[in-house]
């Protein structure tokens, strides 16, 4: 499974990475370290009909994103 490391990357770049990855993948892990990127990416993934599970460790977030249907 693809792991996208977007820690330290400023918005909107993490969303761009996620958008492009979801074009050809149904499941991936996205690593983030800002609440701003977390909110934007979670919202975007949900709008794309994906299930999002978030693991938080300190200031870092690991989003498991899986396309539904």
């Amino acid at each position: 499974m693809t792991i996208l490391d977007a820690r330290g990357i400023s918005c909107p770049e993490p969303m761009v990475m996620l958008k492009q990855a979801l074009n050809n993948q149904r499941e991936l892990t996205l690593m983030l370290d800002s609440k701003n990127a977390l909110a934007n990416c979670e919202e975007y993934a949900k709008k794309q009909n994906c299930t999002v599970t978030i693991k938080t460790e300190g200031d870092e977030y690991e989003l498991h994103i899986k396309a539904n249907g």
Partner: protein
Amino acid sequence: MVKKLALPAVGALFAIASLILVACGNPGNMGLCVACFLRDTAGALGLHGAEAVQYARPEIIGIVLGAMIVSLITREFSSKGGSAPITRFVLGACVMVGALIFLGCPTRMVLRIAGGDLNAIVGLFGFAAGIFGGIFFLNKGFTLKRTYTISKTDGFALPVMSLLLLVALLFFPMLLNFSEAGPGAMRAPIFLALGIGLVMGGVGFISRLCFVAGIRDSAFFKNFSMLFAFVALLVVATVGNIIMGNFNLGLEGHPVAHTDGLWNFLGLALVGLGSVLLGGCPFRQVVLAGGGNTDSVTAVFGMIFGAALAHNLSLASSAAGVSERGPVGFAVAAVLMVGIAVYNTFFNKDKKAGKV
């Protein structure tokens, strides 16, 4: 966190804040223009010699401090930086040159449209064109690379400088320049301006309000929530201007504006492209800077530098029109901006962030 549904309310609040500031003394259609007020602040500090635009605007101080206070309360204050600082500085300067050719940042563009200024609609098309240009580069992989956790002294530097500027404004005004005529002499009362800045900085931080994101996210991510803030600001400010008798539909006779369509378009195209590359509009950069993001501080310093250059080298427009040197300033800024975009999209991929 303010839910997305609240974004129109934030846009409306921004409009009301702008209307109050204009009613209480700020220049027409300039209630809370971040580019104009950074330019005025640069003048107050003696960084440029344009006597008509010199005043340490309390709104800017308020936005920085408001964002800092709210980010500390929500525990989101975070000293971060190191993502292409000089590139961001240059982009900030170029954005300001574009804004001063148009005569306003995206915020003022909306406020000018709300005042019936059709020149700003031409600017809006340019702004959108610039944003679409930015989306092209984003889509092709544009990146300014990673930002890092850095010393707290970096994160607090701008808020502390803003506080010192406030102390100078209140208790040692002899240290600063003040316009005696022109837009810089048109001022809302200090504490009102400061209070509104504090509120908008705080609300801006929580809501992530950004005037570039409205168009960018609608076009690229099919996310229209930020666009609703943009529209709410426009609608409420328009209604307010009509009620207050400040609505004057047409191309002529608007405060601090010129009627040269080509340069209104091109000026804001530069702002649109540069703001997408920076990750946010000038307002968003000032808000993020207050929250400890030194990448944004660098962009804000670039804007202040750009404002100083634009006035010292006579690149900025005036109500009479575009200056003789304005097109040269535009050309230099455009080449720098496109060069940065092309390099960081197509030729700088060796250490690009991405798949692990």
